[in-house]
């Protein structure tokens, strides 16, 4: 039975601030899941802590709201135990790039077939507006007593360096582009990062919806605002690695684009490489039927409720009489 986006809504009251960028992300997710014809039981949304952490409660799919910075390992464990699951991680920028940075990087080394979406708004909203790891150096958002003296981390560049095989950026108020990016990220075979720029109307008074839409800089001729973001695909940019020998060149090109910020912010797919084996492929090299008979599908007991394992071979190695 084909489901509509509204079928992926839960009945839980949504307590995000009015006009929060998270709403766009949630809508895009619900549309993407419907358009991909996924069933709720197949999908698991893992989240960390913060406003983004509440996302799973608002979606009618499996929702695992974990610890601060730890959504990646929870998702990794579930996905490796049952590779049939569609594992989607929804984390904040502080969650994934601050307290969870170690997991963010390590996930790239494994390249598990999962999707990691970062709600990137430059602030810690739920604790009242402290600087997050993606807030640019020198900015003083509303909640800060003085300008930020730490430099920003670049999630796109970091993901490229860490080995993510799909790296993209979306914008939460461009839901149509965002849901298409989500679909691509979910369909990608390997670990996908989708960095989602998202205004925080309450605490980030610099990177606002108006700022992203360029309302402060109207076009000289038409008088219409010129948005600060642009779509990579409209510039003829090709993110896809078609053969392994062009991997480095494609990473370099994506790195160069990842440095663009301020008045020209790229949105779209920076890099995609499906030629790198997934972690599941690598496990299958050792355990041949791993994907057909993963840990979650195995019979561990006999019909009589006894251990299904025969340890004779191992006991033989240890046997002394």
């Amino acid at each position: 039975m084909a489901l509509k986006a509204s079928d992926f809504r839960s009945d839980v009251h949504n307590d995000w601030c009015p006009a929060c960028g998270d709403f766009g992300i949630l809508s895009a997710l619900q549309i993407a899941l419907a358009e991909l014809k996924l069933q709720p039981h197949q999908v698991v949304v893992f989240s960390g802590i913060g406003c983004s952490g509440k996302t799973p409660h608002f979606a009618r799919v499996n929702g695992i709201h974990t610890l601060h910075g730890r959504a990646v390992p929870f998702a990794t464990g579930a996905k490796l135990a049952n590779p049939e699951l569609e594992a989607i991680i929804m984390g904040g920028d502080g969650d994934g790039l601050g307290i969870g940075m170690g997991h963010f990087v390590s996930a790239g080394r494994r390249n598990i077939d999962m999707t990691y979406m970062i709600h990137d708004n430059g602030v810690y909203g739920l604790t009242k507006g402290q600087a997050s790891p993606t807030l640019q150096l020198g900015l003083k958002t509303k909640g800060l007593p003085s300008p930020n003296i730490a430099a920003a981390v670049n999630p796109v560049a970091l993901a490229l360096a860490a080995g993510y095989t799909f790296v993209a950026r979306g914008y939460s108020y461009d839901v149509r582009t965002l849901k298409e990016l989500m679909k691509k990220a979910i369909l990608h075979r390997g670990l996908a990062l989708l960095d989602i720029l998202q205004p925080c109307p309450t605490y980030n008074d610099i990177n606002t919806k108006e700022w992203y839409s360029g309302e402060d800089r109207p076009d000289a001729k038409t008088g219409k605002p010129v948005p600060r973001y642009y779509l990579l695909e409209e510039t003829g940019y090709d993110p896809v690695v078609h053969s392994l020998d062009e991997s480095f060149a494609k990473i370099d090109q994506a790195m160069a684009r990842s440095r663009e910020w301020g008045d020209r912010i790229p949105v779209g797919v920076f890099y995609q490489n499906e030629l790198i084996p997934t972690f599941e492929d690598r496990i299958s090299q050792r355990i041949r039927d791993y994907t057909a008979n993963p840990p979650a599908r195995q019979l561990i007991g006999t019909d009589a409720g006894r251990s299904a394992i025969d340890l004779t071979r191992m006991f033989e190695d240890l046997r002394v009489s």
Partner: protein
Amino acid sequence: MVGGAQGSGVDSGANIFARACCYAGLYVFGNREYHSNIKGMHSYFQIRVAEKPVYCHRSYVDLLATFDAETLVRHRYEVERPGGIIFDPAYESVKIKEIPTLDREVADESTSRLKEKGYGTTVGELLEDAREDGIQTYPMPYMTLVKEIAEKIGEAPSKAARVTNVLVLGASFAILESDIDLLAKAIGAIFGAKPSIAEMNVLGARVAYDYANRNFGTGFGVKLEKVEPSGSRIFLMGNQAVALGKLAGGCRFQTYYPITPAADESEYLEANERLDLTAGEASLAKTTGSIVVVQTEDELAAINMATGAVLTGTRASTSTSGPGFSLMAEGLGWAGMNEAPVVITYYQRGAPATGLPTRHGQDDLRFAIHAAHGEFARIVLASGDIQECFYDAALAFNYAERFQMPVIHLLDKALANSSNTYPTFNTSNIKIERGELLDAGGLQKLLQRESEYKRFQLTESGISPRSPLGTPGAVFWNTGDEHDERGHIDENPTNRTKMMQKRMKKLELVEKEIPVSEKINFFGEQDTTPTVVSWGSPKGAVLEAKERLHAEGTEINLLQLRLIHPFPAADFSRLVKNAERIMDVEMNYSGQLAGIIREKTGILIDDLILKYNGRPMSSDEVYDAIANALAGKGPRRQVLTCGA
């Protein structure tokens, strides 16, 4: 005892010797001690053999085989008359104070003992003193023998030097008047995959055996005689037993971050990741078994990955020691809050901080019981020997799934790294009990009764139906926040009270449903007899002390706690309340179990027998301490100090 620098083959030499003794039909216990170092620092392996089962080491050594001068200095005073020492005469000129890896405490003590007796301070004089004490000394010129072997196989001495560690084994077998073929068989088993290396080692052992027979003659006070072994036996280490128990218990996903002494278990699992299934079972005929082992980026990932796997209905665990468990505290709390049946195997070592990374301790009982903020239900299960490690490792998964809570299987370095002979373990009687886990059919049935699936449904027992992620027909939510029955955030005070009660009352169920035979091992007849209470690895030493006391006409009981949390207060009190005296034996400073007993039962322990020097308890020191306590001699709190 075999000792030498790390990297010089102490471990493999000792394992060959131990196996050869096993082939002689004897029971073997091995105790392995090593520094936190890759190469060069001192390590030793103590092997005890007997015609009946042995479960601990002794304080003294019969035969000391040394790979370097340092071993001689460190262990000379453990050798008791009529013992012997095998050494290279090249060590004799070594000045004790100039051995760079010898700690000053040992060098000072050794030289001052020699000076008191009018000796100088070389290793040669240390040996002279040993001879005066009636100890046999067996000089073996290792390099000369290596050259002889090199000539025989037509290789350079540098290659033949790889067999140096088996020279002492060959010599030992001559001195102990045992069958050299047993040693050859053990070498074959250890180097089975590399026949040319095996052959060279066998030659080395035989050359040394012949040399010793020619030069040392017979008459050593101890002999190693063959007996007929009864039944099929295995010789294994504690961390192998845990790994095997996990496989038998259905564990199919294991995570770990490298840490001593836990990592060996995970590596053993990975080396055996493809499993055989029980033959003759129709349901298993067309399927396979395997375990996925993941080395994680840290222990935070290790616990949380295992918990993630558990949500899919997989039996999953992680293994660590104290420093890793400290990092896991947060994840443990989440598992408790979400009633996730994850198993944590916790090998304690000397603590706090990095502590004694390769040494033994039982410092973390309180920590295992209380780690993580807040109150939630968990089970802490402690095994006392390697066989228990196996069966408890399997049992832990049943507990976790039946009661839907994290289970900490609390072990220690002594159990992890000691080795022992046992009758081959029986897997056919290991039960798989999954509690309220729903398969797809079970979920459909539930959905005929209920309007929706609720992961945290309030039930009379407190246990809710548990559907794995990915089951058609249902979705569920988990959260570290307080939640309602569906798993959504809920801060309502009435809900909070109900949910706290739901989770915590499961501990009462644990106490009620786990049989006393799984909670407590009680060794004794009369409940009025003076009773030792203990937990974990001291079990072997206490049992042997009990046997020796019994031979002298003195009775004691041993109450060994296995289920420590929730504490089996009623069963415990019933077994000890009439005891004339209660003595607590454990490997920490403060007597943590004694404190817990007082907290949970009001029973005050009469005597504390403690040890915290990083070395496991020997039966001799435990025997002495218990005898002192029974005689009312010495302090109420005795601290044991044996071990090098």
